[in-house]
């Protein structure tokens, strides 16, 4: 069948992410003779610069007018390849993205033959769609130059100031009655010894001075609608008053919760066994010698990795398998803080591995050289804490002394607890953001789109995404700010022109589409001798609710036309024969 089209098909190995489970060469060979296909090739990584350049060379050399790339989910690289198509000289809406990884290879790692057959069918459907593609021009709409920051911890406050610096209006919604988040009451913090409380205070003072920042405390989101550039949000403030906001973007800076050990876990629940946050609550506010309940502390034992890097067991059916990153830094820094105090305090740090990456390594070194004792305990044999007649006794096997058992009498045992995802069911229900296996919010791509989410215009700012140090949280927040700023400072967003179109030959104006459209995007116009429907492009959202309603089949959504979908169904239902 001659289509008159010149379509290029490129199948990605994705390293082995696709090619380990799908015979990508067989897929490329199977579709090489599809109508309109003039080139069908494989690339190890279609997203690499080199592969993109080769594809552009093919577009130009073969004068392609349609492009199909079968690779990862379109959520990751559709825009990469649309841009590439344009650089090669093809209209970007004549590019079709086939999801061969998330919806094929990764879902069928147990069936290479079946996955290959499915892959062929998916690519055929893509080719069918590309064969019927037409050039389109993006649609430009205005954005609301305001941002909602959810959470007034260190990430949210710093992010809000940066947005304000850009001239954007900012609303901050904080669930607690007091702004400042987890570190607002903390003292000296790693790595530069600034006090958490002082940092929060200076940020809050600055926020309060800004005319374009509005801070709501005791506030909870109860409704959310709209889309990138124009979200409508309702907050319940102070338990009653409903505040309506209209914003162009949102930053999620909801932070983390500290792991709460179970009763009996490393002696938790015994007098003198506390978590690091609980320890900070009293120790950070003491001057001079360290005391606990009024008594001087001579021996303190720190246990690392509490609530982190857990293995599944009967006692721990839902383990936190991840490393919480910040805890080794916080623990070794606390060691230095204690060495700075007067008195002859002995401190013992029981760890599995010390992960004081980067500059924090110097803090670990300082802690060791100044007298803090570090003992490495085996992964499978954690220290135990018991209450005896002589007080608390910690028993630990010292791995570096050949597993010798050591007993330490302790006045205080501090459990260095990790971070766990913030519990926030109402908000999570409204935002509907994907959650990772660890329970934290998921970014779109860990390397390439690290603060974006599947919901366009909603960005992740800080430890809501994964355990982070304060510096890392603020870094993530400012990355989210630059994404939101980049979006809103322009004043417009280019919306896809994948919207409704009217076939004026078929349309007999019956007003069914007008009634079906919630956006008022349909108008009646005179066209020659008759009246027909007209689509107001800036109002049409392209969801297609009018399409099946039309009794005359006169409506289509660009990119998803009746012809295209029918051809895709034909293509992917065709028998696949593989050797």
């Amino acid at each position, binding site marked *: 069948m001659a289509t008159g089209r010149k379509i290029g098909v490129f199948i990605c190995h994705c390293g082995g992410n696709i090619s380990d489970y799908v015979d990508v060469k067989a897929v490329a060979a199977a579709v090489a003779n599809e109508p309109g296909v003039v080139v069908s090739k494989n690339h190890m990584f279609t997203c690499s610069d080199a592969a993109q350049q080769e594809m552009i060379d093919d577009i130009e050399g073969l004068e392609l007018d349609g492009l199909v790339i079968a690779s990862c989910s379109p959520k990751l690289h559709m825009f990469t390849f649309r841009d590439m198509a344009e650089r090669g000289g093809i209209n970007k809406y004549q590019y079709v993205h086939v999801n061969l990884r998330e919806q094929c290879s990764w879902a069928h790692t147990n069936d290479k033959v079946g996955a290959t057959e499915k892959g062929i069918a998916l690519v055929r459907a893509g080719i069918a769609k590309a064969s019927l593609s037409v050039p389109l021009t993006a649609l430009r709409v205005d954005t609301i130059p305001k941002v909602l920051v959810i959470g007034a911890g260190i990430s949210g406050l710093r992010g809000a100031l940066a947005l304000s610096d850009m001239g954007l209006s900012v609303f901050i919604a904080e669930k607690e009655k007091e702004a400042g988040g987890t570190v607002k009451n903390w003292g000296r913090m790693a790595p530069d010894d600034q006090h958490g409380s002082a940092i929060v205070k200076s940020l809050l003072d600055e926020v309060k001075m800004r005319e374009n920042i509005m801070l709501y405390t005791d506030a909870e989101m109860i409704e959310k609608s709209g889309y990138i550039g124009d979200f409508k949000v309702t907050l319940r403030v102070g338990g009653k008053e409903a505040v309506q906001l209209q914003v162009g973007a949102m930053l999620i800076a909801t932070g983390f919760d500290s792991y709460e050990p179970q009763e009996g876990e490393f002696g938790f629940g015994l007098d003198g066994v506390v978590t690091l946050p609980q320890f900070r609550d009293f120790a950070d506010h003491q001057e001079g010698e360290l005391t606990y309940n009024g008594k001087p502390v001579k021996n303190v034992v720190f246990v690392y990795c509490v609530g982190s890097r857990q293995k599944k067991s009967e006692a721990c059916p839902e383990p936190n398998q991840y490393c919480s990153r910040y805890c080794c830094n916080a623990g070794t820094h606390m060691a230095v803080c204690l060495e700075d105090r007067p008195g002859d305090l002995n401190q013992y740090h029981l760890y599995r591995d010390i992960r004081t990456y980067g500059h924090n390594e110097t803090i670990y070194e300082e802690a060791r050289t100044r007298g803090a004792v570090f003992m490495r305990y085996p992964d499978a044999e954690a220290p135990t804490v018991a209450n005896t007649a002589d007080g608390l006794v910690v028993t630990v096997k010292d791995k570096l002394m050949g597993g010798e058992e050591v007993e330490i009498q302790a006045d205080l045992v501090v459990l260095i607890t990790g971070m766990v995802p913030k519990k926030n069911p109402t908000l999570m229900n409204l935002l509907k953001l994907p959650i990772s296996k660890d329970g934290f919010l998921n970014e779109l791509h860990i390397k390439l789109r690290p603060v974006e989410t599947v919901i366009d215009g909603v960005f992740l700012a800080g430890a809501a995404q994964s355990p982070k140090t304060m510096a890392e949280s603020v870094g993530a927040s400012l990355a989210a700010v630059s994404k939101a700023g980049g979006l809103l400072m322009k004043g417009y967003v280019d919306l896809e022109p994948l919207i409704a179109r009217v076939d004026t030959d078929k349309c007999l104006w019956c007003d069914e589409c007008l009634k079906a459209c919630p956006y008022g995007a349909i108008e009646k116009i005179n066209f020659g001798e008759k009246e027909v429907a007209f689509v107001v492009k800036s109002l049409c959202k392209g969801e297609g609710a009018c399409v099946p309603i039309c009794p005359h089949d006169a409506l289509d959504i660009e990119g998803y036309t009746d012809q295209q979908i029918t051809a895709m*169904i034909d293509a992917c239902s065709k028998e696949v024969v593989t050797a």
Partner: protein
Amino acid sequence: MKSKEPQPKILVFSTNSISDPGIDLAGSAHMHYSTEVQIIPLPCSSGVKPSWIVHAIKQGFDGVFIAGCGGDCSFLADCTPRTSALIKKAQDLMKENDISPKRLKMSGICSVCADNFVAHMNNFQKDLSKLEEK
């Protein structure tokens, strides 16, 4: 060469911003479902034409599953009732074409509903197999 016993073929209409990411998540987590499940993404489940469903069955699919946006639809607050109305229309059209309306299923699949999607595919295949036996 088929890898296994023939299984019912399902065509899924997913939605770009809601159910398609949910289906992606199933893949990212390496949750297995049948390779006889093909997916065509659309902007919104309110835009599925009943004629596409009938066409798919006639072309050899055993069932059509509409993975709707459910209550999360970013376009329409009443996406679910609209999609349900379409299902009704499609079922009527299926009956006219001597196709069992049981070959069509719809459920809201949210952007994190990976388990849900896989369970739906497994159950729908079982239901379709029973339909073949009759």
